[in-house]
């Protein structure tokens, strides 16, 4: 078991500041030279319900969520009830001693840190909402951290919200810390080492996939975004709306997802780099626009953050059930490029790449992520975009000659012009000839279909990337998966020298030959997915003929936890195929 990962959980009702406290602790941990992976669970509510954030801390890179809990910060009784069974034998639990919680569910070997959170808040002159900050300060004390680091983070965080609020929070954290070190001098563990004992660590970004997609879009020169709010992608629009004036692009909240995708298509018709984002339900509304971009050959980037369906489903939980929808949605056929990042950094990089691909191939590009990527924070070195080259694709700038927007070219790619350029053309949702005039003639229909579909072949040749293999070249077991499963799989792989992982990011076009090569000599195969019918497994079979008999599937909205994957690997290696 990866005992080097220390797992903190902070739980409470929605509205108690679980997420902000968790993010603060995560940033504190990275600031002192650690790595983190945050995993957050919350219901579709603004107040009440049960929110919990797991902060996994390690000196090594940490990439996935765990079932176990080494330190529990309970802001309510529910947290104790729900998570006591996850506590390791030498874990600690921190709670409000003034609240008379029922502690009978906590195992006797677990160290208890009763702290009068509400009382300390009152003494600091704050409202009960500040309990999370006092608890964070106390946790830093119990876990051997330097409170100065946390106070600095608080001041930074609240600097835009006024001096009083910053000081109040800083005082609350300080008071919690002092109570903890005075009353519990025997610290649990020195997990949150103070930074002066480490050589100054490289600055680390702590961010989730939503933020990464937004930063990727801005970095790629985003001009226009229209996004209708929906879990789990609303975080993307929050970043885009906030930064639009500074970075000179437009973000618009439209009346619905149909409008979102059509507005983006309109802006792209004028030459913009356009982005929309949604979840599966919103994508259903975008489906007709998806093919409109296809036949009019209008570049467009769509982020689809999957959650548990169908219909409203489990709106704040994760799933990978939309793969087939994104592959097949819309009547008829058109070239679509589909990329599936496995974490926030890949989401950043592939979003940037998607803007180039959309313009080079003049077609929609989907970034397919899941709620776990959208919401879970991880630390990364500062993003570096010095190698990124903007590629607007082939453009026509010659106003003197007759212009053929949909000229038949062997590689499928015609010169593109924008509305307002002076070059006449029709971007036509009807089948059209080379200028864009509507046509139903047999020959032109065939040629335009062939031209459009050819773009996928060209893309496969020129841009498609091979899947990555993590772990040894030769292995007793090869795991195949995609999306956020990458994190817990890599974490589990730390326990095995004879297991490797094939990570798929290009969904369409599909690197069938490379996947086939990687899989056909494997001793044993395991396909891991968060959906009911092993959609990727079926796609691999369709494209390569290789059937992966062993599937590990989950569709309850929860991610794969590291322990679950480890156990599965063990059972397969021991020959017990379940």
């Amino acid at each position, binding site marked *: 078991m990866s005992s080097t990962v220390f797992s903190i959980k902070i739980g409470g009702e929605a509205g108690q500041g679980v997420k902000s406290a968790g993010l603060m602790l995560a940033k504190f941990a990275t600031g002192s030279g650690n790595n983190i992976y945050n995993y957050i669970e919350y219901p579709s509510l603004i107040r009440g319900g049960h929110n919990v954030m797991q902060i996994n801390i390690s000196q090594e890179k940490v990439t996935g969520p765990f079932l176990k809990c080494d330190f529990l910060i309970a802001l309510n009784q529910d947290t104790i009830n729900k998570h006591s069974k996850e506590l390791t034998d030498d874990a600690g639990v921190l709670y409000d001693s003034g609240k008379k919680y029922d502690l009978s569910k906590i195992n006797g070997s677990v160290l208890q840190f009763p702290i009068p959170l509400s009382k300390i808040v009152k003494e600091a002159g704050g409202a009960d909402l500040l309990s999370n900050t006092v608890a964070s300060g106390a946790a830093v004390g119990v876990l051997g951290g330097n409170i100065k680091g946390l106070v600095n983070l608080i001041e930074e965080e609240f600097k835009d919200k006024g001096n009083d609020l910053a000081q109040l929070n800083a005082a609350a954290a300080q008071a919690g810390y002092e109570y903890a070190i005075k009353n519990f001098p025997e610290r649990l563990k020195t997990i949150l080492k103070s930074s002066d004992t480490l050589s100054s660590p490289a600055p680390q970004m702590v961010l989730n996939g939503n933020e990464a997609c937004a930063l990727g879009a801005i970095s790629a020169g985003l001009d*226009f975004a229209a996004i209708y709010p929906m879990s789990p992608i609303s975080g993307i629009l929050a970043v885009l709306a906030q930064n639009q004036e500074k970075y000179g692009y437009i973000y618009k909240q439209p009346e619905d997802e*149909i*409008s979102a995708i059509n507005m983006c298509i*309109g802006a792209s018709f004028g030459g913009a780099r356009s982005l929309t984002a949604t979840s599966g339900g919103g994508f259903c509304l975008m489906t007709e626009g998806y093919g409109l971009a296809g036949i009019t050959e209008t570049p467009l980037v769509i982020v689809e953050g999957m959650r548990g369906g169908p219909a409203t489903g489990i709106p704040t939980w994760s799933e990978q059930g939309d793969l087939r929808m994104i592959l097949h949605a819309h009547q008829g056929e058109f070239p679509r490029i589909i990329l599936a990042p496995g974490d926030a950094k890949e989401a950043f990089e592939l979003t940037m790449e998607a803007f180039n691909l959309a313009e080079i191939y003049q077609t929609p590009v989907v970034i397919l992520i899941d709620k776990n990527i959208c919401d879970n924070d991880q630390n990364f070195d*500062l993003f570096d975009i010095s190698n990124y080259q903007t590629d607007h694709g082939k453009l026509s700038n010659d106003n003197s000659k007759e212009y053929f927007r949909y000229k038949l070219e062997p590689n499928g790619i015609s010169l593109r012009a924008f509305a*307002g350029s002076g070059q006449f053309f029709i*971007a036509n949702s009807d089948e059209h000839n080379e200028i864009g005039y509507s046509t139903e003639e047999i020959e032109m229909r065939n040629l335009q279909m062939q031209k459009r579909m050819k773009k996928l072949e060209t893309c496969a040749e020129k841009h498609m990337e091979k899947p990555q293999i993590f772990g040894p070249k030769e292995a007793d077991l090869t795991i195949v998966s995609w999306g956020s499963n990458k994190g817990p799989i890599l974490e589990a792989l730390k326990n095995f020298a004879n297991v490797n992982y094939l990570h798929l990011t290009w969904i369409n076009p599909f690197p069938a030959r490379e996947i086939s090569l990687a899989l056909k000599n494997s001793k044993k195969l395991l396909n891991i997915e968060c959906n009911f019918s092993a959609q990727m497994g079926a796609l691999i079979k369709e494209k390569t003929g290789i059937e992966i008999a062993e599937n590990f599937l989950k569709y309850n909205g929860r991610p794969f936890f590291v322990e679950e994957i480890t156990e599965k690997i063990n059972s397969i290696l021991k020959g017990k195929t379940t």
Partner: protein
Amino acid sequence: MTLQDLTTPCSPTWCPGCGNLAIWAAFKNAAAYENWNSGNTALVAGIGCHGHIVNFVKITSFEGLHGRALPVACGLKMFKPELNVFVFTGDGDCFGEGGNHFVHACRRNHNITLILHDNGLYALTTGQTSPLSPRGFKTKSTPQGNPDEPINPLALAVTSGATFVARAYAGDIPKLTEIIIEANKHQGFALIDVLQPCVTFNKQFTHQFFQENTYYLDDSYDPTNKFTAFEKSHEFGLKQIPLGVFYKSNEPSYESQLHKHTSSTSEKDLSTLFKSYT
């Protein structure tokens, strides 16, 4: 620019006597007069008989999906506010599938001109009821008579926040030409409801009917008052169909409120943004 410059190799496919032919003529007249071309103007159309117009006017255009012309036009206009943007849409296109977009485009007051080809039914699908068909109207889909109350496009536009609301009759090409030019000059969302006979499927609203029953609002009418505009938009009867500008007001257009667009990525200092996540 001459009418010849606006001509394409495609011949109109509308029925002889169709109101679309007159709208097409009026638009080309306006374009020639105002020098609208592919360098300063873009057209967006929906799906229906009206949508074929993009094949017959040589100005860069986008023929979108049924009901979705408006959001394409809004996206284009937000990104390229310097362009004259015209939307061609039908009564089924705009108020059936596209009703939501219409209300929101009005309230956002995008600086675009919407030309509503209003023939009171679905023509391209061979004659079914539309959201603007009168109650009792008999069509293929309502053989017993339409049981639904029609939408009043002018009243809906006035209450939704459109700032230029007019009605024209397709058969009066000079007057329609004038209104199209005036609507485009207006800074904000402009609706022109063009009463247009469907000579094949609508035997009630014929050229003769409109010629006998319409009249032009005169100087005694004040188009700056929202409430009288609303009231006037409900006047519709024998010898009682008003034409002209019902409502006009000077509210800031959506595009006039937008911040400056930066086209070059190099102007965007991203390191401070990245550092804000440390």
